[in-house]
């Protein structure tokens, strides 16, 4: 076993958020694992939601993204905090729908922030696989708006 190569593997695992790495090739197998880090739960779950407060509060706009991020490999994220609109105006057809093929100059939605309508374009050539947010829904920075499949 080459120590330099092993070191590189160990460093890779350490720096990642993964907990195990196993390689098997020819007649050699290497398995690395990280237990300690896994003992820490994702911090957002560290504090139980205060019962009284959360009962009184309306649904947070920030509830969705964590799940969504897991589920989709490629997404278009919201570049800002604001309200998501799928079409240029009420009653008008949406900019894009699932299955649409878009390029970097295609407007895919509008984010309204402080009464200003900000057009959001795709970051790469891709196919829209799914619209993840309802029109009129508030979104936060970095929240996935569309699941996509890159075409370039």
């Amino acid at each position, binding site marked *: 076993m080459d120590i330099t190569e092993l070191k590189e593997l160990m460093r890779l695992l350490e720096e990642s958020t993964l907990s195990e790495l196993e390689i098997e090739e020819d007649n050699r197998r290497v398995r690395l694992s990280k237990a300690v880090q896994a003992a820490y739960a994702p911090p*957002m779950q560290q504090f139980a939601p*205060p019962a009284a407060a*959360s009962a009184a509060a309306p649904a*947070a706009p920030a509830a969705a993204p964590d799940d969504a991020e897991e589920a989709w490999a490629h997404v278009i994220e919201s570049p*800002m905090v604001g*309200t998501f609109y799928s079409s240029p105006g009420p009653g008008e057809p949406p900019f894009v729908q699932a299955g649409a093929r878009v390029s970097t100059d295609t407007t895919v939605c509008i984010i309204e922030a*402080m009464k200003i309508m900000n057009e959001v374009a795709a970051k790469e050539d891709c196919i829209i696989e799914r619209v993840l947010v309802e029109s009129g829904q508030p*979104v936060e*920075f970095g929240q996935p708006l569309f699941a996509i499949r890159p075409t370039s």
Partner: protein
Amino acid sequence: MPGMFRRILIANRGEIAVRVIRACRAMGITTIAVYSTADRDCLHAQLADESICIGPPSPTESYLNIPRIISAAEITDAQAIHPGYGFLSENAKFANICRDCHIEFIGPSSKAISLSGDKSACRQAVKAAGVPIVPGSDGLITDPAEAIRIGESMGFPVLVKAAAGGGGKGMRIAHNDAALKNAVKMAAQEAEAAFGDGGVYLEKFLENARHIEVQIMADNQGRVVAFGERECSIQRRHQKLIEETPSVALTNSMRAKLCKAAVRAAKAIGYTNAGTVEFLLAPDGYFYFIEFNARIQVEHPVTEEVTGFDLIREQIRIAAGESLGYSAVKPQGHAIEARLYAEDPEHNFRPCPGKIGKLHLPGGIGIRVDSHLYPGYVVPRYYDSMLAKIIARGRNREEAIDRLANALDEVYTDQIVTTAALCAKVVRGDRFRRGDLGPDLLAEYLPKTSV
């Protein structure tokens, strides 16, 4: 009067955001935290009822970004914004925009913020109200010759200060004509670069003067109440490290005069909400107004510990239109605060961001801890390095010192160096006990290279 807020957005991070969240919760108000992508795991984002990501780590794209914060307040239906300290807390434009958007800004009017931010204009307004100010120029200096004339008439050394200044930037000391001429130019350039405003003015430099500030609260009905003073003479790089109330330098009659002057200064600039009036106390017992801080300050807990008031609650009440309901407060006992920064005092206060593993913060009688730390927290490198404030209360100064020193000994932050041990050494030392808090005190406890 709009009635009490039901939903408040906190436009800040870290310990002050946690502090405001706790005050809101005790009032039954729903809290909305904003956070940058570097602060996803920060305690304020976890403790708030709702949390919303507003941008990447850079402050200009998150905590300093007005459109993003206003937009976050709009989509979460917040009725008011608490700005904390730093970031947008003294930004008159932000206060204006909030109110234009029908969101209450929990702080003074933007007019009062502007006036306190223009240090030279503020001096004149306060002087006109009969409050002694440090001798100096009547307004901005435009001509070096004028500076020299004023410097000679009031006597050297002289301080050149930026009208828009803060944190020691744009500030120069001059001991003679030639130095002053240079200092005016240099300070103006520095101020231009740092604040986009090259206006400077002159103040006489008072040697061995102590920094003493008075906490005031002013409601929208015109009542201004002084909450006693704080002494903040122990600083590193113009930033406070240890603060206390009451100050050992004041007699009761001096205190009464100082508080009266602070109230007069606040009224002179039409101030509302929480503010701090800073004075210099000369060795001869005379005091002089220097500036007005238009925000809640880091060290506000020492005032709370001796008065029993929750100053954040008072801020919120005032912003909601309530009147203070009292005309004087009577401080009791003594309180001292030590700030824990993620900095290494042995190496010139080099910042030490990174992950805190095991953690132990002190507790028990007379000890209050304001902090956003938890075991496993990663201190991000993008923001101020303050981790916690340890505040000790005692029936007298001795008791407060003993409790604080021992509480600081208990602090354990795995993998991260803090200022806890330095603060413990300082408060335990003879000079601090004697109340001899000159600006050179801290240097005694630092390696020669770090001063």
